[in-house]
């Protein structure tokens, strides 16, 4: 199953870079695997469609702020993401709308999308360093993504 792993975030905005860091480690761990592509991505919304099109499965790693303990890793499906239709200030659509748009116009989008959200501590100060709690969570997040890939193979993602 052709899989894309996308680490999403702003590499200079503190814990917002955690998705990028996880992706970099995954790239090292996975090496050359013709079925798995690892990407870093700095913007969400419709822009993600270009990155997702043509893959059968997508795993997205991103920072998230829910008010929980920094460093907590959540595994989410698309339906767990807030279904907001509000377009107040983003210069783009939200992820769910982007996926709906892609489906509407017939893009070949992945049938399986999993999101790993890592609770951020600080995403309001420019920095290339993660906060200690989030830094500690990185190896665990890497393992979770690898497990996701393994389970998928075993279960044929059915």
């Amino acid at each position: 199953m052709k899989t894309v792993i996308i680490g999403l975030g702003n590499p200079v905005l503190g814990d917002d870079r955690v998705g990028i860091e996880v992706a970099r480690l995954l790239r090292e761990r996975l090496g050359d695997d013709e079925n798995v592509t690892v990407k870093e991505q700095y913007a969400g919304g419709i822009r993600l469609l270009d990155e997702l099109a043509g893959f059968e499965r997508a795993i997205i790693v991103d920072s998230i702020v829910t008010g929980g303990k920094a460093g907590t890793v959540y595994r989410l499906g698309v339906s767990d993401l807030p279904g907001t239709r509000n377009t107040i200030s983003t210069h783009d659509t939200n992820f769910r709308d982007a996926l709906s748009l892609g489906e509407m116009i017939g893009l070949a989008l992945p049938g399986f999308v999993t999101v790993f959200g890592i609770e951020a501590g600080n995403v309001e100060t420019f920095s290339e360093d993660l906060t200690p709690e989030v830094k500690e969570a990185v190896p665990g997040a890497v393992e979770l993504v690898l497990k996701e890939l393994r389970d998928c193979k075993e279960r044929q993602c059915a």
Partner: protein
Amino acid sequence: MKRITIDPITRLEGHGKIEIFLNDEGDVANAYFQVPELRGFEQFCVGRQAEDMPLITSRICGVCPEAHLLASAKAIDDIFDAEPPSAAKKIRELLYSAFFVTDHTTHFYALGGPDFIVGPDAPPSERNILGVIRKVGLEAGKEVINCRSRNHHVIKMLGGRGIHPVAALPGGWSKSVSETERKEIEEIARKNIDFALFSLKAFDDIVLKNPTYLELVTSDIYLHKTYYMGTVDEKNRVNFYDGMIRVVGPEGKEFIKYHPRDYATHIAERVEPWTYLKFPYLKKIGWKGLTDGPDSGVYCATPLSRLNVSDGMATPRAQEHFEKMYETFGCKKIKGRYQPLHHRLATHWARLIELLYAAERMLELSIDPEITSPDVRKIPERIKGEGIGSVEAPRGTLTHHYVTDERGVLRKVNLIVGTTNNHAPIAMSIKRAAEKMITKGTVITEGLLNRIEMAFRLYDPCFSCATHSLPGGMPLTVNIRNRGGEIIKTLSRY
């Protein structure tokens, strides 16, 4: 006092908060907005090499990295006293034109369009890009995606990397354009022109020919007679990449025209105790609060502002549409230039005219014989120690100002980003929206949220200047307070 806190679902797009204060009669006295502030950018940059700034500043934002890239490139040209060769400037402008096509397209179809094409009072569940595509057709939806993809491809080709191009160097560009690339870009530019014309026609058919929508656009709901700012070329026409900053008054008279380097002489930033947002204003006029008119230093920097300060568009078809817009609103010409248009909802129309201009300019540059010249770099020979660069970001004039030591290591960094210019006008439009929807203490809830959203959207603000993370929405809270400051009602939308 009851205060409801809304937990943001993800912070990364920011969390907007609006405070509306009522008077004793229950009518709107004041309205303010707040958004989260990102901190520490200057400290993050100080101590780094100035030539790294195009890469660093373009990472501030996932929405308009190309604007930061080029303002920064121009600032470091200045620091190293290295004027780029003509071909390098043209390549930069070509990349920037492709960027404007994608950015304005996204805004119209994903953000601005829903208000008009689906309708201002349609429920939020329909007022989005999906609703727009349902109305204008599936083919148009595909074209929106294709338009973005092909122009991102151009940006990647010219800039060496997709979202954060890497080719900017002090004194020019690291990569020339091959004939094969040029041909491909020319073809893409032609498609962009067709798409821009299609979008203007959709606006004409769906908005201008519908009496209800036309009335909305021409109504006084967001009418503010402020000063306007924009960059103009040597013939006082709109230019996104380079030129002089021109400011016109509410009646249309040129107030001042200055080199971007002199921004600090003309622009000051007001700090108010109730918010950390800064409010830029015209120094010579002075700060008179959140109010319009010739005596208030408040100015606006948007697509409509850029058209308002210009004598016209530099490309033929954009010029036709420029004239049509001002004629539709009955603007008179004074000394060969239209009087400014103050109806802020016309900004959406102006944005489409700019989309057409960007596409036409892209074609002009792609067939310019000089565009494939290998002479794209002037090697810097000295370090001046200070540099200022400015471009028109889609959402307003963007200025980068750096000071370095004699080695070119940064000591000081100051940015005035596009949206900041419009903080005061946005607050004024929100107040106007609130006044229409709150009278004698009665609040029309859904109408208020819709009208506030419309006010935001017409300015196309980008508050956090940060990456858009999942799921990419800005939760909004509106607090309505009585004269004593107590919250009497809280509205929110995720």
